[in-house]
């Protein structure tokens, strides 16, 4: 990618589902190495944005562009986006009965890292390390993907996938919802292992507490399908010093839940 290209950029994105407009012109730029947080009330379009970035067929993009390292994602199938290094940690991961976590992850790894051949043994070794890092039981890898998993296990599974597949850009769609504080710490630990100069991250949340563990460089507030407020490090600093109460006061009680 040339120096002029932005790492990840959304321009005037408008999307609808079943004829109902949800996103009404979203603009968002994330540079390489940055972590952004997107907050907003229920129904503001947060999950829609996450799904549109990944290419969910239930949403129609009516206007706008999404660029990632010089490629317009909207012209690509979800699997092609994944192979470019885009990852979505789902809010509600689905179960695939009969397919073990290990088999699934190996297939996904091979699909997204087509040119490098990784031996199963080496792959399993790294997978076990990641599992340990996320404080998950070793038996996890032989269980069927998300089948009978608790809510917390599903979320850890998403982060395990992220750690294993090593994407270049990830969107976390309310990964923190429904997690207790210990699980939240573990999930954050996993995410922080990935963040760095070669990574971009968009954390979508409805709760401020995850931002204590995953610290964003920028913060955006989405209301009714539009980003109504954005701030850089100075805003983040203000939040650290005086908390999130002003967000609630300014944009409504339901934007952020503590």
């Amino acid at each position, binding site marked *: 990618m040339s120096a002029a290209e932005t790492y990840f950029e959304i321009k005037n994105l408008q999307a609808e589902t079943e004829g109902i407009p949800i996103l009404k012109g979203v603009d968002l730029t994330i540079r390489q190495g940055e972590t952004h947080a997107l907050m907003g009330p229920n129904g503001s379009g947060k999950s829609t944005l996450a799904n549109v970035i990944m290419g969910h*067929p239930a949403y129609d993009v009516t206007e706008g562009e999404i660029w990632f390292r010089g490629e317009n994602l909207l012209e690509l199938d979800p*699997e092609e986006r994944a192979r470019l290094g885009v*990852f979505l940690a789902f809010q509600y991961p689905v179960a*695939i*009965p009969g*397919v073990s976590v290990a088999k*699934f992850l190996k*297939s996904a790894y091979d*699909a*997204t890292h087509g040119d490098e051949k990784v031996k199963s043994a080496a792959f399993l070794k790294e997978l076990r390390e990641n599992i340990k890092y996320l404080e998950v039981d070793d038996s996890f890898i032989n269980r069927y993907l998300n089948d009978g998993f608790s809510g917390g296990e599903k979320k850890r599974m998403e982060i395990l996938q992220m750690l294993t597949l090593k994407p270049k850009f990830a969107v976390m769609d309310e990964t923190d919802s429904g997690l207790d504080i210990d699980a939240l710490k573990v999930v954050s630990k996993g995410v922080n292992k990935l963040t760095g100069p070669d990574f971009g991250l968009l954390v979508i949340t409805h709760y401020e507490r995850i931002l204590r563990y995953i610290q964003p460089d920028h913060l955006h507030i989405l209301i009714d399908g539009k980003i109504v407020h954005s701030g850089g490090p100075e805003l983040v600093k203000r939040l650290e010093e005086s908390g999130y109460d002003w967000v609630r006061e300014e944009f409504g009680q339901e934007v952020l839940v503590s």
Partner: protein
Amino acid sequence: MSKESTAILDDYKYGFYTDIEADSVPKGLSEEVIRIISAKKNEPEWMLEWRLQAYRWWLKQQPPRWAHLEYPPIDFQDICYYSAPKAGADSPEAQAELMATFERLGVPLHERDRMAGVAVDAVFDSVSVATTHREMLAEKGIIFCSISEAIIEHPELVKKYLGTVVPYTDNYYASLNSAVFTDGSFCYIPKGVRCPVDLSTYFRINALDTGQFERTLIVAEDEAYVSYLEGCTAPSRDRNQLHAAVVELIALDRAEIKYATVQNWYAGDKEGKGGIYNFVTKRGHCRGTHSKISWTQVEAGSAITWKYPSVIMEGDHSVGEFYSVAVTTNKMQADTGTKMIHVGNNTKSTIVSKGISAGQSINSYRGMVQVLPDAKNCRNYSNCDSMLIGGECSANTFPYIESENSSAIIEHEATTSRVSEDQIFYLKSRGLSEEDAISMVVNGFAREVFKQLPLEFSVEAVRLLEMKLEGSIG
């Protein structure tokens, strides 16, 4: 060399036809035709007599219509009941042609490329054309040959067991089969012998308007063990062809028989034109104590499948198992399942059925668990899951439970699910292509059954499923 027609309709890669001169009897069914078939096979008088009795019984019956299937009445006078490659085993040219056909089907019969660990009997239209590994099996006293050969070489065994599990009065198609069966396999495992290789029969319908009526009989004496595999294909044709087989399994004290089928008969085209009517009676009899019979089937072909591999558990502590994956696409119809009949005490049965429907197909599970009044402490576990792909297909489950002994424990679970857009999207978002995503979901669904198959067969089954379901979503 005769030429081969390579017209392969749609994506059924086994749809080719081998142009080989056939010795056929004229179409139609009569006592005369049965006498001709029996004479062509040099059968003893008792065999002919049995066929004729079956035929006379069949004449008085009506075809069953209780299955959840739609098809026009079959004109039994418009079917050819015997077709064999003309030169038979004697002509080297014909042999080469047949070998080449099976080679193309992935079933090598030549000495040099035989599959390690599998002995194969190959049946082409009405006759068996080759049986491999025979000498090695003979050393252990195992008999593995065509049923026609067994009737002549081992009449005492055939007489003792044939029709004892599926009598010719059992049902319409079983009696038709008893009257006109032309070939099939015979396996006999003597007392205390574990068959060292998987025994396998490959059935091929080639000739037009020919029915295939094979008959398979497997006997495992006390403490014997055998694993048997069956595969089937037919050329693509726009007319329906009838396949009415009978398979009988007999397990004596502590014997075990595992029977696996991968059925991929031609299923007709996308509009439902052509394809095989697969009307089959398969039944096992656990005659001895602690015996075990296990059916595993992957039903992926045929325009219509009507098939209920069953186990009668007569010996105390005997075990019956049924593992099934039935896939229907386009306009295919399947009504398949099992019957588990508990006669002895402490008998145990397991049913795992996975139905996968796509296109406009209809896929029904029909199963019966029966516990007789004197059978104490019997157990059954049944699990019948259906998966729907797309919005135009249907799945049905018809479980019948008849328990006449209060000590029985019977569990039945059933689910119906849909391959969802969300599942496919989830897997695609991890880099998998649409085909790989569908195949992962479907194979996961069928996993419990596939793991019952021998490894090579299970790989084959997974591929078959992928091929069948290609392009069936979206």
